[in-house]
């Protein structure tokens, strides 16, 4: 592992208008890791991702990516450096076809990992390959999730911020999504996974951060978290 993490978030405050959501939140991700950020509804998970990608600007603290300060950059700038957000509820373009949804992301971001061509991405997601000319809105929830991930790959992401990728999906599709996340990781892509579902995190992530009321309250490997009944019970509502 390199000396400096790929992404380091150092004591950031962030929120919406006068409402502060994140309080001195810090976390770090090394290249090639899958790291999860897990917590209850309203804990600040999505706010963390939105601040990292640049939709929100932290009011204090710094965010560094590949050694550079990206705290004040907006989304259009962070994405060209190799970050990608796969937002909650996927947010694919409903009126565009599957192919167009991928084309729009294909604008050559600066990237260590070679960005996937549209054909390569379609090769990876077989369901999508059969429906390239269908409108995004005609896809099922799981397929939309795949499309949103494929879009990030076509955009040349090195670090993907995945916001609740399994939310609202049937259990067997959750398994498909988890397989995809592993496959991404095998291709050398780093993943920050935000989840409410602890089991997904425990199964996928190398390390886990537990967030509560805008603060990181725990950090540990899957095995450590799984063994820590107190944290599981207190912050995640899981009784072992």
């Amino acid at each position, binding site marked *: 592992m390199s000396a400096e993490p790929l992404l380091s978030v150092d004591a950031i405050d962030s929120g919406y208008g006068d409402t502060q959501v994140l309080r001195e939140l810090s976390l770090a991700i090394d290249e090639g890791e899958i790291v999860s950020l897990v917590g209850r509804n309203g804990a600040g998970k999505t706010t963390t991702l939105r601040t990292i*990608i640049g*939709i929100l600007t932290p009011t204090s603290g710094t965010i560094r990516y590949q050694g550079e300060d990206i705290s004040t950059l*907006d*989304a*259009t*700038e*962070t*994405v*060209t450096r190799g970050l990608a*957000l796969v*937002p909650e509820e996927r*947010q694919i*373009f*409903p*009126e*565009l076809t599957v192919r*167009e949804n991928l*084309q*729009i*992301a294909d*604008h050559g*971001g600066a990237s260590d990992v070679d960005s996937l061509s549209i054909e390569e991405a379609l090769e990876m997601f077989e369901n999508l390959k059969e429906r390239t000319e269908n409108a995004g809105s005609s896809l099922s929830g799981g397929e939309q999730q795949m499309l949103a991930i494929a*879009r990030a790959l076509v*955009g040349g992401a090195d670090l993907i911020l995945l916001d609740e990728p399994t939310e609202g999906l049937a259990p067997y599709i959750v398994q498909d999504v988890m397989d995809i996340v592993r496959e991404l990781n095998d291709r050398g892509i780093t993943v920050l996974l935000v989840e409410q579902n602890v089991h997904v995190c425990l199964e996928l992530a190398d390390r886990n951060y537990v967030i509560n009321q805008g603060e990181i309250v725990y950090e540990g490997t899957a095995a450590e978290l799984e063994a820590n009944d107190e944290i599981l019970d207190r912050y995640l509502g899981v009784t072992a």
Partner: protein
Amino acid sequence: MIGGILQQLVDGLTIGVVYVLLAAGLSVIFGVMHVINFAHGELFALGAYFALALIAPFGGTAFFAALFVAPLLVGIIGVAIERFTVRPLYGRNPLYHILLTFGLVLVINDLIYLIWEPGNVNLPTPAILSGTIDVVGLNASVYNVFVIVFGAAMALSVWAMLEHTKYGLIIRAGSQDRQMVRNLGIDIDRYYSLVFGMGAALAAVAGIILGGYQTVSPEMGMSVIIPAFVIVVLGGLGSFKGAVAGGLLVGIIQTLLRTYAPILEGTVIFLLMIGILLVRPRGLFGVEMEEEGGELLTGSGGVLDDRTRKWVGLAAVGLLALLPLGAGTFYSTYTVTLAIEILVWALFALSLDFVMGYTGLVSLGHALFYGLGAYAVAIALLHVSQSAFVAIGLAIVISAAIAWVVGYLSIRVSGVYFAMITLGFAELFYNMLYRLEITGGSEGLFGISTYYGIAGVGIALDEIGLFLGPVTLTGQSLFYYIALAALIGSFLLTRRMLNSPFGSVLKSIRENEQRATFLGYETTRYKRRAFVVSGALAGLAGGLFTLNSGYAAPSFAYWLHSGEVIVMVILGGMGTLYGPIVGATVFFGLEEILTGFTPRWRLVLGTIFLLFVIFLPRGLVSLPARLKPLVTRDSGPGAEPAPDDSHMRGDD
């Protein structure tokens, strides 16, 4: 007969193509930026005037060069407009874009008057486009054929650009979800200027080809903008396909009606739009769009406490009551006439504020009710009774009844569509005024006299004069008190309503309609009731005007009137009831002062209004609260030490 119809179809297609080019830009601009661009008609006129200027030195042959260069220039102006006026308003409620572009209409239109001569001018066309040509047995003018072919080629290339280029892909994606486009690393704001510029250029092309077909005049923009909106709305806001289908449809229908059923011309397209919106609230090809956030910025939250406010109000009323006494001594009697106009418009603005500022219903057709009141009074006085009381009573009842019908039909659609459907109703009424016999056609009704009383007993103000020592109260002065009483009465009535539980529901609807629904309120019914009250008060305002002036004209219901009253509400401060009164006073005061210096007062007024929308959207009444920190800092007791000074700033 068949030949005649075919000929009509060719003419209809020609006009249709002009509409398509105009509506396409309008629709795409809305789709991507959610901006309702009222200035689009003025850009259209600018295109024709630029072409006129370019062709003048060279003659008709320069037409083709102008067809290329003029749209380019207008496109650049479009980019500048987007960058410097539209851009600061992104993220606010789309209403502010309507207001902004309405201000631009005033400014650009007056600039056209300033630079070019008023009146109709012919746009020279090249010899090659004159004469006729045989098309499948039909003798068509070469110019028509050129317009249809050229316009079709333009529309096709815009379509191809939208469908098959990266630029078009980004525009289409942006019209569905702007933030997500940004999340993909695309700086969509850069594309906004281009889209606006492109729309402006298309409008310019439309202006040039219509100028060559008919004539060029400063009013040409105003006359096409409303049909263009109808097309965009009935086709579906943001849909290119809808703009094309709607443009051709309206062009052909209008042309056919002009020949075969002139009485329906001008009304059918509005009926068509209203009908389509009622069946398909998103238009023919419209799709569900992300709901625009951005609250309406009200002017509430002043610096005065309730007690002081009450005293200021009473003092203002007292001063107003004294105003006619000084007429003829301290100032001319014209002051009273002007003051009556201000009172009437203040009442009109107050009526709009009641629905716009308190329930968030942006009525773009409020002149409908003003016109209804005016005509109801005129017709009642001419045909029913000469009693002013009977006439004004009828005006209120009729305006309220029509407001209920309009409200019933239009409140089911929301936001921009509501604005458009109310505009449609007002234009429908405006066009009917021209065509009906009972309303006196384009001349309107005039020479109406009345008396204040009932059943033949009362007084006529025209022939009265009260002599109180040095003070003379003319009939005009006495009417002033009637208008003042109507305004104060309406103010107290609406304020009382707003302080009742009914008012709380209205305000909760403005803040968040869905939450009001979750609390168990049937919001549609509350909105409709508020709309009826507002319509009745607007009718009262229009009725008062006709009572005093003795005439009613179709222009009362013109869309510019609806726009002006919105200007007054915003100028003063929406959602305050007294703000619109301040706004009406300042509006007429400015007009009065400016007309003394320049006939182009709209240019100055429009500019002031633009600055207001951009920098002071909460209106004049918010000024004291904004200035307060500055004032308190300057007039602090003695020299404040520096740290305290910074503390004050931190407080803001």
